[in-house]
């Protein structure tokens, strides 16, 4: 599960969901940033212009008031008392004037009123002001003095002078002067709604702060050179700010309205948008992960279940079934196919188990049958030998004379009993041996043996029969044959005695030859040749089958069990050997037993043991 599909799906979904959101968020943030920046600037500019307009309005209103008063009929020529009253009326009408004065065309004060008792007259202070005043008085235009401080209160004041013109001549009679309190502009600034961190203030021609919500700045005579409109610079407060300024011109002088906006404030909305985009992205992330994981789980969980079921079945839990077979989708299809397969396997397995059971039963039955057969053979052997023991024993005692003398006829008949008893014994032995061979119960017990000893034993066993039939017994042992061979001497001796007794039986005159020779580097041969009646070609094929002798007549003439050659063949095969027969009718037969040559590692003491 290194590359779990759930993880892959989840990551894919997150990628799919988040990438566009993130992209849109970034684009929106950039757009907003730009737009909001522009909007903030516009708002700031509008605010600045608004303030400038209000300042202008304020000053224009003062100018209008003064102009109205200056146009009062015959103001200049009225009595001083009346003039004073009119000025005082205006001063008390609005609190905007620090001082009001009526000057002649030369600038000499005729009448004056003041907000603060004892304050000096409103007059030009410097040569430049005087020049400006003179020009205004000459041309009949409005005079704007510089911003200056009230001597008693340090309030910034702006002097406005309105010429008084004779309606008849049009000549300038004098000037109506008013010191306008700019402090009220500060109050006006206070009324302006500013955002947090924003600041609005007003500068005079010399860039001295003349109005600021914080009056101490005005008192201290702080100055500020406004940077180009709408640029970022260090503000009056000393912080970075977006600064917008708007000049308001009055005659030859001007005042400047300045609004500072900290960048954070200006871009606040843009930042908000970015934040929202970020939050949305985060939410999208979580939702996408959730959807991805859920979707993947809904798809993958059945597959996992299926895998677990397959695993369980592999471990032998064949009753397990895929749990999602009820689904209508592809997974359901897969599950149903899987279940079909499992049930098929179950059926096959059951059938297989049944046949295995059958086979096991059959094997057990066969084994039991075999055991019973062995037991039967053992019992048979014992039971048949017991009466034969008596028959052979008694007849032999009688023949040998141990039990007294018999007449010739009785001796003959006893000999027949004895002979037939021995024949029966041989028959029993052969039948039992063959049964054992056919039941594959012959055990080949290979061990070192001496071929010489084998030959001697065979000679001693056969000599009496040879002598009875007056045959020559020739024995040839190949000098190249090792003195010790590995094999089962008992079985080899059984084969040899069978073949030798056959050879003697079917040979009336001539010789029987026993030969042991090395055939090749890995086989040796035991052959028995006779000069007997021989076996016709057609009989050579079945001569080794059980109970087959040449014909009925020969069976009578040459008594035997008819099992000898069968036993020879079976025992030879059991030892990994081969039987070969060469025979010509009338000239004799040669039986050759070819056996694997197995050398003994330590050839010794064979000759000693033989003697």
């Amino acid at each position: 599960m290194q590359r779990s599909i759930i993880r892959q799906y989840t990551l894919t979904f997150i990628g799919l969901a988040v990438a566009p959101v993130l992209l849109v968020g970034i684009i929106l943030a950039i757009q907003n940033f730009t737009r909001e920046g522009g909007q903030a600037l516009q708002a700031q500019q509008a605010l600045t212009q608004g303030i400038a307009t209000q300042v202008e309005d304020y000053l224009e209103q003062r100018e209008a008031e003064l102009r109205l008063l200056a146009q009062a009929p015959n103001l200049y020529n009225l009595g001083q008392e009346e003039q004073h009253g009119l000025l005082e009326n205006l001063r008390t009408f609005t609190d905007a004037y620090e001082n009001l004065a009526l000057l002649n065309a030369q600038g000499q004060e005729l009448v004056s009123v003041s907000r603060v008792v004892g304050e000096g007259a409103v007059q030009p202070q410097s040569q430049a002001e005087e020049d400006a005043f003179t020009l205004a008085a000459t041309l009949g235009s409005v005079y704007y003095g510089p911003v200056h401080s009230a001597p008693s209160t340090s309030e910034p004041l702006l002097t406005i002078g309105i010429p008084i013109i004779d309606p008849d001549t049009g000549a300038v009679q004098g000037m109506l002067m008013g010191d306008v309190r700019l402090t009220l502009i500060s109050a006006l600034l206070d009324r302006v709604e500013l955002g947090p961190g924003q600041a609005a203030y007003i500068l005079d021609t010399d860039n001295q702060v003349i109005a600021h919500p914080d009056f101490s700045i005005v008192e201290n005579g702080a100055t500020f050179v406004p940077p180009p409109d709408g640029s970022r610079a260090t503000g009056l407060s000393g912080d970075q700010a977006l600064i917008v300024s708007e000049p308001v011109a009055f005659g030859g002088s001007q005042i400047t309205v300045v609004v500072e906006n900290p960048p954070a404030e200006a871009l606040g909305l843009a930042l908000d948008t970015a934040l929202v985009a970020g939050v949305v992205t985060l939410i999208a992330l979580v939702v996408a992960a959730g959807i991805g994981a859920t979707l993947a789980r809904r798809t993958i969980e059945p597959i996992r279940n299926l895998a677990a079921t397959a695993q369980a079945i592999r471990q032998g839990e064949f009753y397990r079934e895929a749990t999602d077979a009820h689904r209508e989708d592809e997974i359901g299809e897969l599950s149903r196919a899987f279940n079909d397969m499992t049930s098929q396997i179950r059926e096959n397995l059951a059938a297989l188990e049944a046949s295995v059971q059958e086979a096991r039963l059959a094997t057990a039955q066969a084994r039991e049958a075999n055991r019973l057969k062995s037991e039967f053979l053992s019992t048979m052997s014992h039971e048949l030998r017991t009466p034969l023991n008596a028959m052979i024993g008694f007849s032999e005692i009688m023949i040998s004379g141990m039990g007294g003398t018999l007449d010739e006829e009785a001796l003959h008949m006893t000999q027949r009993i004895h002979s037939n008893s021995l024949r029966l014994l041989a028959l029993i032995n052969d039948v039992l041996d063959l049964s054992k061979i056919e039941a594959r119960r012959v055990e080949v017990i290979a061990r070192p043996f001496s071929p010489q000893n084998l030959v001697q034993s065979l000679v001693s066993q056969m000599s009496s029969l040879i002598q009875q039939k007056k045959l020559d017994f020739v024995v040839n042992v190949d000098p190249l044959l090792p003195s010790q061979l590995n094999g089962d001497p008992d079985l080899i001796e059984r084969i040899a005695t069978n073949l030798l007794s056959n050879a003697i039986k079917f040979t009336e005159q001539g010789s029987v030859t026993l030969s042991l020779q090395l055939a090749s580097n890995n086989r040796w041969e035991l052959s028995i040749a006779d000069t007997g009646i021989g076996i016709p070609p057609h009989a050579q094929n079945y001569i080794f089958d059980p109970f087959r002798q040449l014909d009925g007549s020969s069976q009578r003439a040459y008594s035997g069990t008819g099992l000898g050659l069968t036993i020879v063949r079976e025992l030879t095969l059991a030892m990994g050997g081969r039987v070969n027969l060469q025979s010509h009718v009338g000239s004799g037969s040669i039986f050759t037993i070819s056996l694997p040559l197995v050398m003994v590692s330590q050839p010794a003491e064979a000759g000693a043991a033989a003697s």
Partner: protein
Amino acid sequence: MISRENISSWLVLVVDDEADSIEVATRVLKFHGAKVCTADNGRAGLDAVQQIKPTFILTDLSMPVMDGWEMLHHLQNNPQTADIPVVALTAHAMVGDRERAVGAGFHYYLTKPLSPLTLLDDLLRLFSTPLSENSTIGKTHPLDKDAS
């Protein structure tokens, strides 16, 4: 020492449940001059050994009451009888029977049917040759093959 010369001093205990088998063995042994005493099962054989000290015992293996194996076991466990040679004479002539008998502790092993003509020679040969070195004697009746 068992030899042909002292055959007249032999006292052979023949144990077999078959009367015919006992008679054959008894006749042959008596013919050669040995004294014979008989028992028809292992228990009776052990009882007889209480009374007499046989030169050797010639016993069947399969018998009622007590078989030859058990009798041998009792004889071997008794110090007074452990040195008596016991020759198995049995119709159990199947492959492996001889090995089983030798493994159980029988001194010698002969198969039925015994040959009256060669019994004495076989016995004398057995007593002069250790059983383990003798593979041909007593396996089958010497005339089994000759007769066919």
